[in-house]
């Protein structure tokens, strides 16, 4: 490789890297800025004021954070465990392909559009405006993902391993506790993280089914943006980005799957 070529490559890597990192850097800077408006290209003053005041009760950020964590954990645990079992059923079923196709519908379709359609069902069931309602609505979509995720996991080799355990005398609970769960630790974790993030990011669906009463972090970001409170929006955005960043950095394989 020529010298010129290498310089060009390094410059390109640096430029693209800057673009990738820019949103996070910008949000951080904004959260420490004061009076950063047109025509200031850089913040005229910096302070940590936001990070001190934003935890106050009237801002609702702490509540939103806790609510978001609760929702996402429940959705992730629910969809991962149900998806794990349901995918097993689908994988070994005669209609595997048809059932799998069904799972793709909630997986890729807009939660908002489907959310508008199921809204009335949730009204009838008295679930609109409740945390339970939002959990169930998000589960619907997270489950589609979890089933697709685990269907490829339940292959002929897993089946044979399970048979091997049975022939050596393992009962159903023993097969799960001693073979199926231990060999599934990695995929279970991956699925948990991804469904967690799905719920963590969700705005539109939470808004419809939550009826505006369930103020999770993404809902707060939007509220702050609407109120033109850009510093609060930046602070909430950073809180919103931290868990996914930690998770995605921890596992790059997940990054690719997640984008789907």
């Amino acid at each position: 490789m020529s010298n010129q070529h290498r310089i060009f490559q390094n410059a390109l890597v640096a430029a693209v890297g800057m673009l990738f990192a820019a949103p996070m850097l910008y949000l951080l800077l904004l959260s420490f800025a004061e009076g950063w408006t047109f025509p200031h290209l850089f913040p005229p003053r910096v302070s940590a004021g936001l990070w001190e005041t934003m935890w106050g009760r009237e801002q609702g950020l702490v509540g939103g954070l806790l609510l978001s964590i609760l929702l996402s954990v429940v959705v992730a645990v629910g969809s991962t465990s149900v998806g794990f079992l349901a995918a097993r059923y689908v994988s070994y079923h005669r209609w595997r392909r048809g059932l799998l196709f069904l799972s793709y519908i909630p997986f890729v379709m807009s939660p908002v559009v489907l959310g508008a359609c199921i809204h009335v069902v949730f009204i009838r069931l008295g679930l609109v405006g409740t945390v339970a309602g939002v959990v169930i609505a998000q589960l619907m979509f997270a489950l589609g993902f979890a089933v697709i995720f685990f269907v490829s996991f339940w292959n002929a080799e897993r089946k044979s391993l399970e048979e091997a355990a049975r022939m050596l005398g393992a009962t159903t609970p023993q097969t799960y506790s001693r073979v199926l769960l231990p060999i599934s630790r990695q995929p279970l974790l991956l699925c948990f993280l991804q469904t967690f993030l799905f719920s963590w990011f969700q705005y539109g669906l939470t808004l419809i089914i939550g009826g505006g009463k369930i103020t999770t972090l993404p809902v707060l970001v939007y509220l702050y943006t609407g109120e033109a409170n850009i510093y609060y929006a930046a602070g909430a955005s950073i809180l919103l980005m931290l868990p996914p960043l930690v998770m995605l950095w921890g596992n790059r394989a997940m990054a690719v799957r997640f984008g789907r």
Partner: protein
Amino acid sequence: MVLTVQEIGKCFGQQMVLQGVALSVAERQTLSVLGRSGCGKTTLLKIIAGLIAPDSGTVRLHGAEITKKPTEQRNVVYLYQEPLLFPHLTVFENIAFGLRLRRLPNNDLTHRTTRMLEHLELQAHAKKFPHQLSGGQKQRTAFGRAIIIAPDVLLLDEPFSSLDPETRASMQHLFKQLAQEYGIASLFVTHDLKEAILMGDSIGYMEAGKLTTFASRQEFINHPDYGARNEIEFWSSLRQQATNHDHAATV
């Protein structure tokens, strides 16, 4: 008889895979079943192991019918073509797996497993995980894991076909030794004529879902239809030629 199979039939959709299959295996004996791939051998073994339900017929173990018994209560172990080890467990834990399920006291378990490791000459690899083993070592571990729970019948589905010829020969030897020592009855399925004759106390031939069994090895060898005699004649004529050639050379 340890294992008696009667009139087993099985269809997959339109396709008849097994038809009126009957066989029996006596205490400490090995029945080899010779057949090409796709003749229904694997389906037969999986029916005996309880992994597939037959359409008709019965499977008996020590005279008691087990046709509808769940796999885990049969005490019949099926060994796959590929040595299928639990990837999350060490060699030691793979072999000890069945004993752990039976909640054996710890020192008894350690003692038995260690002895099995010695038999298999795997002591040095006890703490390794499956992905660190060679093909032969994996297959030996799979054997140990099956034999240590003293199954009533061991079902072997071309267990050596993925091994190189040398390892294969030593595994055949090891298997005979272990079966003898632990007194296990087995059903050995292969497509290799030589292996069938070598491993079996009696022999069966399977074609298109039908099984023909022979009371003795000799009867099978003498039968004109199954190629054993051709094989013998081929090798002896080769030997004849070689000695003639040597003879001519010395003259």
